[in-house]
Protein backbone atom coordinates (compact mmCIF):
# COMPACT_ATOMS: atom_id res chain seq x y z
CA UNK A 1 0.00 0.00 0.00
CA UNK A 2 1.29 3.44 -0.93
CA UNK A 3 1.35 5.74 2.05
CA UNK A 4 0.56 9.44 1.77
CA UNK A 5 3.50 11.38 3.17
CA UNK A 6 2.74 13.78 6.02
CA UNK A 7 2.49 17.36 4.79
CA UNK A 8 3.42 19.33 7.91
CA UNK A 9 1.25 21.65 9.99
CA UNK A 10 2.00 24.90 11.76
CA UNK A 11 2.05 25.30 15.54
CA UNK A 12 1.12 28.45 17.42
CA UNK A 13 1.78 28.82 21.14
CA UNK A 14 -0.03 31.82 22.56
CA UNK A 15 0.89 33.20 25.99
CA UNK A 16 1.02 29.79 27.66
CA UNK A 17 1.37 29.71 31.42
CA UNK A 18 1.68 26.42 33.26
CA UNK A 19 1.85 25.85 37.00
CA UNK A 20 2.22 22.85 39.29
CA UNK A 21 0.72 24.03 42.57
CA UNK A 22 2.65 27.15 43.50
CA UNK A 23 5.43 26.48 41.02
CA UNK A 24 5.12 28.40 37.74
CA UNK A 25 7.04 26.39 35.15
CA UNK A 26 6.05 28.32 32.03
CA UNK A 27 5.39 32.02 32.32
CA UNK A 28 3.88 33.31 29.10
CA UNK A 29 5.45 31.31 26.29
CA UNK A 30 4.77 32.60 22.76
CA UNK A 31 6.02 30.74 19.74
CA UNK A 32 5.18 30.16 16.07
CA UNK A 33 6.43 27.14 14.19
CA UNK A 34 5.90 27.05 10.44
CA UNK A 35 4.63 23.96 8.63
CA UNK A 36 7.58 21.80 7.60
CA UNK A 37 9.99 23.49 9.96
CA UNK A 38 12.27 21.68 12.45
CA UNK A 39 12.52 23.67 15.65
CA UNK A 40 14.87 22.78 18.51
CA UNK A 41 13.77 23.94 21.93
CA UNK A 42 16.89 24.27 24.05
CA UNK A 43 17.32 24.92 27.73
CA UNK A 44 18.83 23.53 30.88
CA UNK A 45 17.24 20.93 33.14
CA UNK A 46 14.06 22.08 34.85
CA UNK A 47 13.37 24.96 32.48
CA UNK A 48 10.07 23.45 31.33
CA UNK A 49 11.09 22.17 27.86
CA UNK A 50 9.45 18.79 28.32
CA UNK A 51 6.37 20.42 29.85
CA UNK A 52 6.06 22.66 26.80
CA UNK A 53 6.20 19.74 24.36
CA UNK A 54 3.70 17.77 26.45
CA UNK A 55 1.32 20.72 26.33
CA UNK A 56 1.75 20.91 22.55
CA UNK A 57 1.06 17.17 22.26
CA UNK A 58 -2.08 17.50 24.40
CA UNK A 59 -0.75 15.29 27.19
CA UNK A 60 -1.23 18.11 29.70
CA UNK A 61 -3.51 21.14 29.71
CA UNK A 62 -1.96 24.59 30.23
CA UNK A 63 -3.03 26.61 33.25
CA UNK A 64 -3.77 29.45 30.83
CA UNK A 65 -3.08 30.36 27.22
CA UNK A 66 -3.74 28.47 24.00
CA UNK A 67 -1.87 26.15 21.68
CA UNK A 68 -3.02 25.59 18.11
CA UNK A 69 -1.77 22.87 15.79
CA UNK A 70 -2.80 23.00 12.16
CA UNK A 71 -5.24 25.81 13.00
CA UNK A 72 -7.04 23.76 15.66
CA UNK A 73 -6.85 24.17 19.43
CA UNK A 74 -5.08 21.15 20.93
CA UNK A 75 -8.08 20.01 23.06
CA UNK A 76 -10.34 20.20 19.96
CA UNK A 77 -7.88 18.14 17.97
CA UNK A 78 -7.50 15.61 20.81
CA UNK A 79 -11.28 15.22 21.10
CA UNK A 80 -11.71 14.23 17.44
CA UNK A 81 -12.22 10.50 16.75
CA UNK A 82 -9.04 8.97 15.27
CA UNK A 83 -10.56 8.50 11.80
CA UNK A 84 -11.70 12.14 11.63
CA UNK A 85 -8.36 13.75 12.42
CA UNK A 86 -7.27 15.95 9.51
CA UNK A 87 -3.60 15.38 10.31
CA UNK A 88 -1.59 13.12 12.59
CA UNK A 89 0.70 13.89 15.50
CA UNK A 90 3.38 11.51 16.79
CA UNK A 91 5.85 11.72 19.61
CA UNK A 92 9.21 10.17 20.50
CA UNK A 93 9.62 10.02 24.27
CA UNK A 94 12.68 10.42 26.46
CA UNK A 95 12.61 6.79 27.64
CA UNK A 96 11.49 5.48 24.21
CA UNK A 97 8.19 4.32 25.79
CA UNK A 98 8.04 1.07 23.83
CA UNK A 99 5.51 -1.39 25.23
CA UNK A 100 7.64 -4.12 26.80
CA UNK A 101 5.23 -6.99 26.15
CA UNK A 102 5.00 -6.29 22.41
CA UNK A 103 7.58 -7.07 19.73
CA UNK A 104 9.21 -4.32 17.70
CA UNK A 105 6.75 -4.90 14.84
CA UNK A 106 3.76 -4.95 17.18
CA UNK A 107 4.94 -1.69 18.74
CA UNK A 108 5.39 -0.05 15.35
CA UNK A 109 2.02 -1.17 14.00
CA UNK A 110 0.09 -0.69 17.24
CA UNK A 111 -1.80 2.43 16.17
CA UNK A 112 -2.78 0.92 12.81
CA UNK A 113 -3.76 -2.37 14.43
CA UNK A 114 -5.89 -0.75 17.14
CA UNK A 115 -7.70 1.53 14.69
CA UNK A 116 -7.90 -1.17 12.01
CA UNK A 117 -6.73 1.16 9.29
CA UNK A 118 -4.46 -1.29 7.45
CA UNK A 119 -4.35 -4.94 6.47
CA UNK A 120 -1.78 -7.27 8.05
CA UNK A 121 0.20 -7.26 4.80
CA UNK A 122 0.28 -3.46 4.62
CA UNK A 123 1.25 -3.13 8.26
CA UNK A 124 4.12 -5.56 7.77
CA UNK A 125 5.30 -3.69 4.68
CA UNK A 126 5.14 -0.31 6.50
CA UNK A 127 7.03 -1.79 9.43
CA UNK A 128 9.78 -3.08 7.13
CA UNK A 129 10.00 0.33 5.45
CA UNK A 130 10.31 2.40 8.63
CA UNK A 131 12.72 -0.06 10.22
CA UNK A 132 14.94 0.29 7.16
CA UNK A 133 14.60 4.06 7.45
CA UNK A 134 16.01 3.98 11.00
CA UNK A 135 18.57 1.29 10.10
CA UNK A 136 16.95 -1.38 12.25
CA UNK A 137 15.93 -3.82 9.50
CA UNK A 138 15.46 -7.42 10.66
CA UNK A 139 14.58 -6.60 14.24
CA UNK A 140 10.80 -7.07 13.76
CA UNK A 141 10.42 -9.94 16.20
CA UNK A 142 12.68 -8.70 18.96
CA UNK A 143 11.24 -7.54 22.27
CA UNK A 144 12.24 -4.08 23.58
CA UNK A 145 14.07 -5.79 26.45
CA UNK A 146 16.49 -7.30 23.92
CA UNK A 147 17.45 -3.89 22.48
CA UNK A 148 20.11 -1.41 23.59
CA UNK A 149 19.19 2.18 24.51
CA UNK A 150 20.13 3.50 21.07
CA UNK A 151 18.17 0.75 19.31
CA UNK A 152 15.10 1.50 21.41
CA UNK A 153 15.28 5.17 20.39
CA UNK A 154 15.46 4.12 16.72
CA UNK A 155 12.45 1.83 17.10
CA UNK A 156 10.58 4.62 18.91
CA UNK A 157 11.33 6.89 15.95
CA UNK A 158 10.20 4.16 13.54
CA UNK A 159 6.93 3.81 15.49
CA UNK A 160 6.39 7.56 15.27
CA UNK A 161 7.12 7.62 11.53
CA UNK A 162 4.99 4.57 10.70
CA UNK A 163 1.75 6.56 10.71
CA UNK A 164 3.12 9.29 8.42
CA UNK A 165 2.72 12.08 10.96
CA UNK A 166 2.37 15.71 9.96
CA UNK A 167 3.76 16.88 13.28
CA UNK A 168 6.43 15.01 15.22
CA UNK A 169 7.50 15.88 18.77
CA UNK A 170 10.72 14.64 20.33
CA UNK A 171 11.20 14.85 24.10
CA UNK A 172 14.94 14.59 24.79
CA UNK A 173 15.50 11.98 22.05
CA UNK A 174 19.17 11.53 22.98
CA UNK A 175 18.84 11.39 26.77
CA UNK A 176 21.06 8.67 28.28
CA UNK A 177 22.92 8.10 25.00
CA UNK A 178 26.67 8.43 24.48
CA UNK A 179 27.97 11.05 21.99
CA UNK A 180 28.29 8.57 19.12
CA UNK A 181 24.69 7.38 19.48
CA UNK A 182 23.57 10.97 20.01
CA UNK A 183 25.06 11.93 16.67
CA UNK A 184 23.48 8.90 14.98
CA UNK A 185 20.02 9.80 16.29
CA UNK A 186 20.63 13.41 15.26
CA UNK A 187 21.47 12.28 11.74
CA UNK A 188 18.27 10.20 11.61
CA UNK A 189 16.19 13.21 12.64
CA UNK A 190 18.03 15.30 10.04
CA UNK A 191 17.22 12.64 7.44
CA UNK A 192 13.54 12.81 8.40
CA UNK A 193 13.74 16.60 7.92
CA UNK A 194 15.27 16.08 4.47
CA UNK A 195 12.96 13.30 3.27
CA UNK A 196 9.61 14.24 4.79
CA UNK A 197 8.02 17.70 4.67
CA UNK A 198 6.72 17.40 8.22
CA UNK A 199 6.95 19.76 11.19
CA UNK A 200 9.30 18.63 13.92
CA UNK A 201 9.74 20.01 17.43
CA UNK A 202 12.82 18.65 19.17
CA UNK A 203 13.22 19.35 22.86
CA UNK A 204 16.83 18.85 23.91
CA UNK A 205 19.67 20.24 25.95
CA UNK A 206 22.14 18.76 23.46
CA UNK A 207 23.91 21.27 21.24
CA UNK A 208 25.08 18.51 18.87
CA UNK A 209 21.48 17.65 18.06
CA UNK A 210 20.55 21.30 17.63
CA UNK A 211 23.46 21.77 15.23
CA UNK A 212 22.55 18.73 13.13
CA UNK A 213 18.76 19.01 12.90
CA UNK A 214 17.48 22.54 13.57
CA UNK A 215 16.10 24.98 11.03
CA UNK A 216 15.66 27.26 14.01
CA UNK A 217 16.34 27.09 17.72
CA UNK A 218 14.44 28.58 20.65
CA UNK A 219 16.02 28.96 24.06
CA UNK A 220 13.75 28.50 27.07
CA UNK A 221 14.74 30.31 30.25
CA UNK A 222 12.82 31.62 33.26
CA UNK A 223 9.65 30.11 31.84
CA UNK A 224 9.79 32.14 28.63
CA UNK A 225 11.36 32.00 25.19
CA UNK A 226 14.54 33.94 25.86
CA UNK A 227 16.04 33.67 22.40
CA UNK A 228 14.93 32.53 18.93
CA UNK A 229 16.77 32.31 15.65
CA UNK A 230 19.02 30.15 13.50
CA UNK A 231 21.65 27.97 15.14
CA UNK A 232 24.40 30.40 14.07
CA UNK A 233 22.50 33.39 15.44
CA UNK A 234 21.99 31.48 18.64
CA UNK A 235 25.73 30.79 18.97
CA UNK A 236 26.45 34.50 18.58
CA UNK A 237 23.78 35.60 21.06
CA UNK A 238 24.87 38.27 23.58
CA UNK A 239 22.09 37.26 26.02
CA UNK A 240 23.76 36.36 29.37
CA UNK A 241 21.44 33.36 29.98
CA UNK A 242 22.12 31.97 26.53
CA UNK A 243 25.88 32.60 26.86
CA UNK A 244 25.93 30.79 30.18
CA UNK A 245 24.04 27.80 28.67
CA UNK A 246 26.41 27.75 25.68
CA UNK A 247 29.46 27.84 27.91
CA UNK A 248 28.15 24.93 30.00
CA UNK A 249 27.13 22.98 26.88
CA UNK A 250 30.54 23.49 25.26
CA UNK A 251 32.27 22.20 28.39
CA UNK A 252 30.02 19.16 28.54
CA UNK A 253 30.29 18.46 24.82
CA UNK A 254 34.07 18.66 24.78
CA UNK A 255 34.26 16.51 27.91
CA UNK A 256 31.93 13.91 26.30
CA UNK A 257 34.05 13.91 23.16
CA UNK A 258 37.22 13.43 25.18
CA UNK A 259 35.60 10.54 27.08
CA UNK A 260 34.51 8.99 23.82
CA UNK A 261 38.00 9.27 22.32
CA UNK A 262 39.39 7.60 25.46
CA UNK A 263 36.89 4.78 25.13
CA UNK A 264 37.65 4.34 21.40
CA UNK A 265 41.36 4.33 22.16
CA UNK A 266 40.97 1.68 24.85
CA UNK A 267 38.68 -0.48 22.71
CA UNK A 268 40.98 -0.18 19.76
Amino acid at each position, binding site marked *: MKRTPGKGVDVKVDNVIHEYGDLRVLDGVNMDIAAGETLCVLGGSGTGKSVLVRLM*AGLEVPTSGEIQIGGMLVPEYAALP*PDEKPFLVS*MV*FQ*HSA*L*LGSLTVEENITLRMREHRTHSEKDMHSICEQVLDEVEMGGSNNKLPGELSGGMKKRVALARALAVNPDLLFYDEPTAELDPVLTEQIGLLIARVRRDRPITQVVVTHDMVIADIVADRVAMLGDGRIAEEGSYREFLASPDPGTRSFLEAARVLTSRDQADNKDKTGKDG
Partner: protein
Amino acid sequence: MQRCGRTVLNTLSTLGEVLLLLGRSIPGPRSLWRERTRIVEQMIIVGSETLPIASLVAFFIGMVLVVQTADQLVNYSQEVLGSIVGLSMTKELGPVLIAFLVAGRVGSSITAQIGSMAVYDELNALRTMDIDPERYLVTPRIIAMALSLPVLILYADAVGILGGCLAVQLDPAIDISLALFWDNLVSEIAMQDIVVGLVKGVVFGVTIAAVSCAFGLRTRGGTAGVASSTTQSVVWSFVLVIVFDFIIVRMAVLLP
Protein backbone atom coordinates in the same frame (compact mmCIF):
# COMPACT_ATOMS: atom_id res chain seq x y z
CA MET B 1 -8.79 16.19 63.78
CA GLN B 2 -7.47 17.76 60.60
CA ARG B 3 -5.45 14.61 59.82
CA CYS B 4 -8.50 12.46 60.44
CA GLY B 5 -10.56 14.62 58.06
CA ARG B 6 -7.83 14.43 55.43
CA THR B 7 -7.72 10.64 55.74
CA VAL B 8 -11.49 10.39 55.28
CA LEU B 9 -11.33 12.70 52.26
CA ASN B 10 -8.44 10.71 50.72
CA THR B 11 -10.35 7.47 51.28
CA LEU B 12 -13.49 8.83 49.65
CA SER B 13 -11.45 10.30 46.81
CA THR B 14 -9.74 6.94 46.14
CA LEU B 15 -13.08 5.11 46.26
CA GLY B 16 -14.53 7.64 43.82
CA GLU B 17 -11.55 7.23 41.52
CA VAL B 18 -11.93 3.44 41.49
CA LEU B 19 -15.69 3.68 40.87
CA LEU B 20 -15.27 6.19 38.04
CA LEU B 21 -12.59 4.03 36.42
CA LEU B 22 -14.89 1.04 36.71
CA GLY B 23 -17.75 2.97 35.15
CA ARG B 24 -15.60 4.07 32.21
CA SER B 25 -14.10 0.64 31.68
CA ILE B 26 -17.18 -1.56 31.53
CA PRO B 27 -17.48 -2.36 27.84
CA GLY B 28 -20.49 -2.75 25.59
CA PRO B 29 -20.97 -6.05 23.71
CA ARG B 30 -19.11 -4.78 20.62
CA SER B 31 -15.99 -3.64 22.41
CA LEU B 32 -16.14 -6.78 24.56
CA TRP B 33 -15.88 -8.83 21.37
CA ARG B 34 -13.08 -6.59 20.12
CA GLU B 35 -11.09 -7.06 23.29
CA ARG B 36 -11.56 -10.85 23.35
CA THR B 37 -7.93 -11.70 22.59
CA ARG B 38 -6.57 -9.48 25.34
CA ILE B 39 -9.23 -10.78 27.76
CA VAL B 40 -8.17 -14.38 27.10
CA GLU B 41 -4.50 -13.40 27.49
CA GLN B 42 -5.26 -11.84 30.85
CA MET B 43 -7.31 -14.87 31.95
CA ILE B 44 -4.34 -17.10 31.16
CA ILE B 45 -2.10 -14.81 33.25
CA VAL B 46 -4.55 -14.86 36.18
CA GLY B 47 -4.83 -18.66 36.00
CA SER B 48 -1.15 -19.42 35.55
CA GLU B 49 -0.07 -17.07 38.34
CA THR B 50 -2.67 -18.28 40.82
CA LEU B 51 -3.37 -21.98 40.20
CA PRO B 52 -0.21 -23.56 41.68
CA ILE B 53 -0.28 -21.57 44.92
CA ALA B 54 -4.10 -21.82 45.13
CA SER B 55 -3.89 -25.60 44.86
CA LEU B 56 -1.38 -25.84 47.66
CA VAL B 57 -3.10 -23.40 50.00
CA ALA B 58 -6.65 -24.67 49.39
CA PHE B 59 -5.53 -28.28 49.91
CA PHE B 60 -3.94 -27.52 53.27
CA ILE B 61 -6.78 -25.21 54.35
CA GLY B 62 -9.19 -28.11 53.71
CA MET B 63 -7.08 -30.44 55.84
CA VAL B 64 -6.61 -27.88 58.63
CA LEU B 65 -10.35 -27.20 58.65
CA VAL B 66 -11.12 -30.89 59.13
CA VAL B 67 -8.52 -31.41 61.85
CA GLN B 68 -9.47 -28.24 63.79
CA THR B 69 -13.22 -28.80 63.53
CA ALA B 70 -12.91 -32.47 64.46
CA ASP B 71 -10.97 -31.46 67.56
CA GLN B 72 -13.74 -29.03 68.55
CA LEU B 73 -16.40 -31.70 67.97
CA VAL B 74 -14.62 -34.43 69.86
CA ASN B 75 -17.16 -34.32 72.71
CA TYR B 76 -20.13 -34.01 70.33
CA SER B 77 -20.76 -35.73 67.01
CA GLN B 78 -18.26 -35.58 64.17
CA GLU B 79 -21.00 -36.55 61.71
CA VAL B 80 -21.56 -32.88 60.81
CA LEU B 81 -17.91 -32.49 59.80
CA GLY B 82 -18.70 -32.82 56.07
CA SER B 83 -21.26 -30.03 56.04
CA ILE B 84 -19.08 -27.70 58.12
CA VAL B 85 -16.07 -28.19 55.87
CA GLY B 86 -18.10 -28.03 52.64
CA LEU B 87 -20.06 -24.92 53.58
CA SER B 88 -16.98 -23.14 54.96
CA MET B 89 -15.06 -23.78 51.75
CA THR B 90 -17.81 -22.92 49.26
CA LYS B 91 -19.33 -19.93 51.02
CA GLU B 92 -16.38 -18.24 52.70
CA LEU B 93 -12.90 -19.70 52.64
CA GLY B 94 -12.72 -20.52 48.91
CA PRO B 95 -13.81 -17.06 47.70
CA VAL B 96 -11.82 -15.04 50.24
CA LEU B 97 -8.74 -17.23 49.98
CA ILE B 98 -8.67 -16.94 46.19
CA ALA B 99 -9.39 -13.20 46.32
CA PHE B 100 -6.44 -12.62 48.66
CA LEU B 101 -4.14 -14.77 46.55
CA VAL B 102 -5.19 -13.01 43.34
CA ALA B 103 -4.86 -9.57 44.96
CA GLY B 104 -1.39 -10.45 46.21
CA ARG B 105 -0.07 -12.06 43.05
CA VAL B 106 -2.02 -10.73 40.08
CA GLY B 107 -3.32 -7.42 41.48
CA SER B 108 0.11 -6.32 42.64
CA SER B 109 1.60 -7.26 39.30
CA ILE B 110 -1.11 -5.28 37.45
CA THR B 111 -0.38 -2.17 39.54
CA ALA B 112 3.38 -2.55 39.10
CA GLN B 113 3.04 -3.05 35.34
CA ILE B 114 0.65 -0.15 34.71
CA GLY B 115 2.57 2.00 37.22
CA SER B 116 5.83 1.41 35.34
CA MET B 117 4.06 2.23 32.10
CA ALA B 118 2.89 5.51 33.64
CA VAL B 119 6.34 6.39 34.94
CA TYR B 120 8.08 5.59 31.64
CA ASP B 121 5.55 7.45 29.45
CA GLU B 122 4.13 4.30 27.86
CA LEU B 123 0.61 5.44 28.77
CA ASN B 124 1.33 8.79 27.13
CA ALA B 125 2.68 6.94 24.10
CA LEU B 126 -0.67 5.15 23.85
CA ARG B 127 -2.49 8.49 24.14
CA THR B 128 -0.45 10.01 21.32
CA MET B 129 -1.48 7.00 19.21
CA ASP B 130 -5.15 7.79 19.98
CA ILE B 131 -5.38 4.62 22.03
CA ASP B 132 -7.27 5.01 25.30
CA PRO B 133 -5.13 3.37 28.01
CA GLU B 134 -8.25 2.54 29.99
CA ARG B 135 -9.80 0.61 27.12
CA TYR B 136 -6.49 -0.97 26.15
CA LEU B 137 -5.27 -1.91 29.63
CA VAL B 138 -8.10 -1.75 32.17
CA THR B 139 -11.12 -3.25 30.39
CA PRO B 140 -9.48 -6.60 29.51
CA ARG B 141 -8.14 -6.96 33.05
CA ILE B 142 -11.50 -6.25 34.70
CA ILE B 143 -13.38 -8.67 32.46
CA ALA B 144 -10.67 -11.33 32.79
CA MET B 145 -10.71 -11.11 36.57
CA ALA B 146 -14.53 -11.17 36.69
CA LEU B 147 -14.52 -14.38 34.61
CA SER B 148 -11.49 -16.05 36.18
CA LEU B 149 -12.17 -15.69 39.87
CA PRO B 150 -15.40 -17.75 39.95
CA VAL B 151 -13.61 -20.56 38.11
CA LEU B 152 -10.65 -20.36 40.49
CA ILE B 153 -13.03 -20.38 43.45
CA LEU B 154 -14.78 -23.52 42.20
CA TYR B 155 -11.38 -25.11 41.76
CA ALA B 156 -10.25 -24.04 45.27
CA ASP B 157 -13.51 -25.38 46.75
CA ALA B 158 -12.89 -28.75 45.09
CA VAL B 159 -9.23 -28.93 46.13
CA GLY B 160 -10.05 -27.83 49.69
CA ILE B 161 -12.73 -30.49 50.02
CA LEU B 162 -10.28 -33.02 48.59
CA GLY B 163 -7.78 -32.01 51.27
CA GLY B 164 -10.52 -32.44 53.86
CA CYS B 165 -11.31 -35.92 52.53
CA LEU B 166 -7.66 -36.88 52.81
CA ALA B 167 -7.50 -35.65 56.41
CA VAL B 168 -10.65 -37.62 57.29
CA GLN B 169 -9.12 -40.72 55.75
CA LEU B 170 -5.68 -40.40 57.39
CA ASP B 171 -6.19 -38.65 60.74
CA PRO B 172 -6.67 -41.21 63.55
CA ALA B 173 -8.44 -38.58 65.70
CA ILE B 174 -11.38 -38.55 63.29
CA ASP B 175 -13.97 -41.17 64.06
CA ILE B 176 -16.23 -40.95 61.02
CA SER B 177 -15.76 -42.72 57.70
CA LEU B 178 -15.01 -40.96 54.47
CA ALA B 179 -18.40 -42.08 53.09
CA LEU B 180 -20.24 -40.49 56.02
CA PHE B 181 -18.20 -37.30 55.68
CA TRP B 182 -19.01 -37.14 51.95
CA ASP B 183 -22.72 -37.93 52.38
CA ASN B 184 -23.07 -35.19 55.01
CA LEU B 185 -21.19 -32.72 52.80
CA VAL B 186 -23.26 -33.42 49.67
CA SER B 187 -26.59 -33.41 51.50
CA GLU B 188 -26.00 -30.06 53.22
CA ILE B 189 -24.50 -27.98 50.41
CA ALA B 190 -27.23 -26.34 48.32
CA MET B 191 -26.76 -24.84 44.88
CA GLN B 192 -27.45 -21.43 46.44
CA ASP B 193 -24.31 -21.78 48.61
CA ILE B 194 -22.14 -22.39 45.56
CA VAL B 195 -23.79 -19.53 43.65
CA VAL B 196 -23.14 -17.11 46.51
CA GLY B 197 -19.46 -18.11 46.37
CA LEU B 198 -19.39 -17.51 42.62
CA VAL B 199 -21.11 -14.12 42.96
CA LYS B 200 -18.44 -13.20 45.48
CA GLY B 201 -15.86 -14.25 42.91
CA VAL B 202 -17.25 -11.87 40.28
CA VAL B 203 -17.48 -8.96 42.75
CA PHE B 204 -14.01 -9.62 44.20
CA GLY B 205 -12.49 -9.99 40.73
CA VAL B 206 -13.92 -6.70 39.48
CA THR B 207 -12.89 -4.97 42.73
CA ILE B 208 -9.30 -6.22 42.68
CA ALA B 209 -8.85 -5.39 38.99
CA ALA B 210 -10.35 -1.90 39.31
CA VAL B 211 -8.31 -1.07 42.43
CA SER B 212 -5.08 -2.45 40.95
CA CYS B 213 -5.53 -0.57 37.67
CA ALA B 214 -6.56 2.68 39.40
CA PHE B 215 -3.45 2.66 41.59
CA GLY B 216 -1.31 1.81 38.56
CA LEU B 217 -2.74 4.67 36.50
CA ARG B 218 -2.23 7.24 39.29
CA THR B 219 1.43 6.25 39.83
CA ARG B 220 3.92 9.13 39.84
CA GLY B 221 7.50 9.52 40.98
CA GLY B 222 9.68 6.79 39.51
CA THR B 223 10.31 3.36 40.96
CA ALA B 224 9.53 4.54 44.51
CA GLY B 225 6.11 5.59 43.24
CA VAL B 226 5.56 2.17 41.66
CA ALA B 227 6.46 0.42 44.93
CA SER B 228 4.17 2.68 46.95
CA SER B 229 1.24 2.23 44.52
CA THR B 230 1.67 -1.55 44.55
CA THR B 231 1.59 -1.77 48.34
CA GLN B 232 -1.43 0.53 48.56
CA SER B 233 -3.34 -1.38 45.89
CA VAL B 234 -2.88 -4.71 47.72
CA VAL B 235 -3.98 -3.19 51.05
CA TRP B 236 -7.01 -1.53 49.45
CA SER B 237 -7.93 -4.76 47.64
CA PHE B 238 -7.80 -6.77 50.88
CA VAL B 239 -9.93 -4.24 52.74
CA LEU B 240 -12.53 -3.89 49.99
CA VAL B 241 -12.73 -7.68 49.54
CA ILE B 242 -13.59 -8.08 53.23
CA VAL B 243 -16.11 -5.21 53.12
CA PHE B 244 -17.85 -6.62 50.02
CA ASP B 245 -17.70 -10.10 51.57
CA PHE B 246 -19.70 -8.85 54.54
CA ILE B 247 -22.21 -7.05 52.30
CA ILE B 248 -22.77 -10.14 50.13
CA VAL B 249 -23.07 -12.44 53.16
CA ARG B 250 -25.57 -10.08 54.74
CA MET B 251 -27.62 -9.97 51.54
CA ALA B 252 -27.40 -13.76 51.10
CA VAL B 253 -28.76 -14.30 54.60
CA LEU B 254 -31.86 -12.36 53.59
CA LEU B 255 -32.45 -14.70 50.63
CA PRO B 256 -35.25 -17.25 51.09
